[in-house]
């Protein structure tokens, strides 16, 4: 089993930490994992992305040329990464941030989910990233929510551990959507 996943969006949408969470959870489940952020002056442009690989085998290059899954949290990311998705891969798109028309015109398989809106309903649009991760787990069954929870304890500093229940709620809501 090997998943090559690109997660992309605006700075502030938490795409890097979503990727990190995924990688950590993968490691917890005994997989080989890698996580690579976009770095450098690109950050100025206001967009960010990361490449996450979760694999039973050794991970080759951490840089993804062709993704199994692209999680696109905004329009520029959708436009940029759509073409990198393998023919048998798919896109997870935050339809709160991307015009339906654009999504509709895509040749690639895509799951649309209004993550930002739903996260807003859950109390904070910052949970959009974890909400969409829930969807990812639901679609692929690649990792269990329990691993994500364990990863949250590793990734978040102790003083933020009180937020984990809310994060998990967002994850599960995402899984059910």
């Amino acid at each position, binding site marked *: 089993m090997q998943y090559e996943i690109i997660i992309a969006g605006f700075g502030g949408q938490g795409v890097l930490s979503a990727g990190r969470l995924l990688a950590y959870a993968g490691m917890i489940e005994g997989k080989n994992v890698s996580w690579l952020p976009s770095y450098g*002056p690109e*950050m*100025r*442009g*206001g967009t960010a992305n990361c490449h996450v690989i979760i694999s039973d085998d050794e991970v080759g290059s951490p840089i993804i040329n062709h993704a199994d899954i692209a999680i696109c949290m905004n329009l520029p990311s959708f436009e940029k990464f759509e073409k990198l998705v393998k023919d048998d891969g798919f896109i997870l798109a935050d339809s709160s941030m991307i015009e339906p028309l654009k999504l509709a015109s895509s040749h690639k398989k895509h799951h649309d989910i209004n993550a930002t809106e739903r996260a807003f309903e859950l109390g904070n649009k910052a949970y959009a990233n974890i909400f969409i991760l829930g969807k990812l787990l639901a679609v692929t069954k690649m990792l269990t929510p329990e691993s994500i929870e364990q990863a949250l304890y590793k990734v978040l500093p102790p003083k933020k551990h009180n937020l984990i229940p809310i994060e998990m709620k967002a994850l599960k809501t995402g899984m059910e959507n």
Partner: protein
Amino acid sequence: MPERLVPKSLTDRVWHYCPGCSHGIVHRLIAEVIDELEIQGTVIGVAPVGCAYNNYEYFNFDIIQAAHGRAPAVATGVKRVLPDRMVFTYQGDGDLAAIGTAEIIHAAARGENFTTVFINNAIYGMTSGQMAPTTLPNQVTMTSPNGRDTSSQGFPIRMSEMLALQDGTAFVERVSTHDVRHIIQAKRAIKKAFKVQQAGLGFSIVEVLSTCPTNWGLSPLKAQKWLEENMIPYYALGNIKGKDIKV
């Protein structure tokens, strides 16, 4: 009231700077000054390594991208061989006050007849927020995580005062970008610096106190306020040398 269009000396490309970053404000000022002095065709700018590394994409006149800190040396090379052109360097505080210390001081001491616009935002912007020589005492940065501790990390350098000491320096002024009134003053200083160069009087520099909202971790508005309340007390605004020059 006159029209306020995009200056001729700017291209129409969208800038990569973060929201509220002073770089954009100063770019516009420089372009306006060049338009007003009608020198677009004779200007050669020297871009630094720093967030403004690619300002040749934004300025609509000749520009040379220089190695980190070496803009004054590059400008010296240009101005020496083309003394009738207008030459300026655009440099950040890491560029000018750290790695490029020797180059700027010696350009000043030699009285090189070019102008420097010095963007002092008290931090390394481009490399994501390390301590600069101009970082204030106790200011938190990525490399002063508990605030700059002057006992182990030293004291901020006041570059303008040091450069004003050089006999080759004709004009030095420190300005700010934290509100419109100060931005207007900043433009006046930049214009005067260019005129000092036109008159062949020697080295001229304008230090522009600037914000880096991103790496200060503040909103653009809070950043302007932080600048006003923290930087200005340390870096006194106003003319430091050449006040009486009439150009």
